[in-house]
């Protein structure tokens, strides 16, 4: 069986959609963070696949994916630090408790 562009793109878009769904529905901050990671990783797949199948002569997409991974790692580190701080002050990592400020 020939693996074409679509065999990679469709799972990647499904992955992104799962991330968006999880971001909106999850109550736990850590679960929301995992959903965000899912979205960022599906973008990396997109870049690498476009590069590999459509523009095999160059490396731009691969490099973008590498940098995007590094950026995602930085984001996770920061988010975890802030979630730990939230847990220290509020004794919970549930988004439903983070409603002191609204409207």
């Amino acid at each position, binding site marked *: 069986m020939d693996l074409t562009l679509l065999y990679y793109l469709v799972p990647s878009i499904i992955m992104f959609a799962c991330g968006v769904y999880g971001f909106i529905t999850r109550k736990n901050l850590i679960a929301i963070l995992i959903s965000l990671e899912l979205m960022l990783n599906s*973008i990396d797949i*997109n870049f690498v696949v476009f590069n590999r199948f*459509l*523009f095999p002569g*160059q490396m731009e997409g691969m490099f973008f994916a590498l940098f*995007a991974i590094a950026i995602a790692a930085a984001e996770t580190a920061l988010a975890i630090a802030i979630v730990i701080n939230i847990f220290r002050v509020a004794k919970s990592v549930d988004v439903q408790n983070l409603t*002191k*400020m609204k409207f």
Partner: protein
Amino acid sequence: MDYSQFLFMHHEIGVLIVFLLVFLFDTFLPARYQSKLAVTSCVLFGIYTVLSFFTPLDNAEAFSGMFVTSPIVASIKNILNVGMFIVLLQSIQWNNSDHEVIRRGEFIELMLVTLFGMYLMVSARHFLLFVIGLETASLPLAALVAFEKKQYESHEAAVKYLFTAVFSSAIYMLGLSFVYGFAGSLYFNDIAVACGLAEGSMLLYVALAFVVAGIGFKISLVPFHLWTADVYQGAPTSVTSYLSVVSKGAAAFAAFIVLTQAFGTVYSAVWEWMLYALIILTITIGNLFAIRQTNMKRFLAFSSISQAGYIMLGVIAFNATGIAALSYYVLIYVVSNLTAFGVIQAIENATDKVDMTDYNGLYKTNPKLAFAMMLAMFSLGGIPPFAGFFSKFFIFSSALAEGSVAMYVLVLIALINTIVSLYYYLLVVKAMFINPNDNPIPTFRSHWTERAGLVICVAGVLLIGLVSCIYTFLNQAASVSQLF
């Protein structure tokens, strides 16, 4: 590799030097000098700000076109410098307060790093560099928002800011991956060519919708504005003022650069109408929500949302006057908004009060602060002798330059909203000057740094509109910058 190309990055090198000096001071000098850290770094940054006005203005590029500098880009960076300097000046007293003293260095260093990221956003002509700049500008800001370690609101604001920021960059980068899919390159020039060829393709619409949504999150355009008010309220006031002027200004410039340089060829076909709808929504809903706020920081958050709508008029204008009017608007917005935040911060440091009802009768006890706040409100509302009127005038005229009926309708809606905005700006003035209060904020004398910051801002509000050479200079810089 040709190392001389680094020499074109005047501003970046300058801010890196300031960063390194502050970092060395913070790390290696003995404890008895540390109380001078905030003032020293402010002075260092001030020297750099003044020097940066004298850097040569020319068109140059580095890293095979990834990084571009031109007269208007250099002027934009100078405007950001001015905002950053005033924010640093106003933050000194808060930074030296007992509970912040241990993290004094980090605050200034993180601010300088975000400024570096904003420079990259404005100068980038390749999406890899642009995304790195964007993340460098937004990630340390989340740490800054969470800076009041003992306060719950600060952490709630940081979670909301960071998660929406990452979510928006994910959406943005998904759009970029589609752009890469049909353009085969991430250089703005190549994308512009590919967009022109791909006009009418569905992929282009989807990709641009994602990119515009991602940018909209950063500038807090309505429907992507929901994080703004909470973050502004929860963050320390110095960080709020930084977010609302420097960060927003840089994002607006970046939006202009990306939309005109990379997607300029499909302006009227694709993104003009997206932006048109966003601007109307932003100005109107920002204004309507501002009316019902009682917390001053939330109030200014919604006011800054509607101001972002006005700023985007310079982008939709899509001409060289547009970027000149946009930079001019941001400059005036910097001084007016920092006047308001300077007053709020002075009162918060002295009494811990941020509600609008607390400001009742402020004129009786602190006439100078009330007067400065009044000037800021008049300028933000656009009352003629003050700077805000001129910035609104130029941005409206740049949007009307093309002369289409749609643009006239847009400017008409913006004008009607200006009148609505006058109502809530004057509510603050009424609270300070007319409303009686049995228990007003007591008379106090604010710290000299806060007074110095307010004097600079008030001078800006009074003078920038009248000194016409500033706009002439920006217009001249924009026309020789090879943007169109």
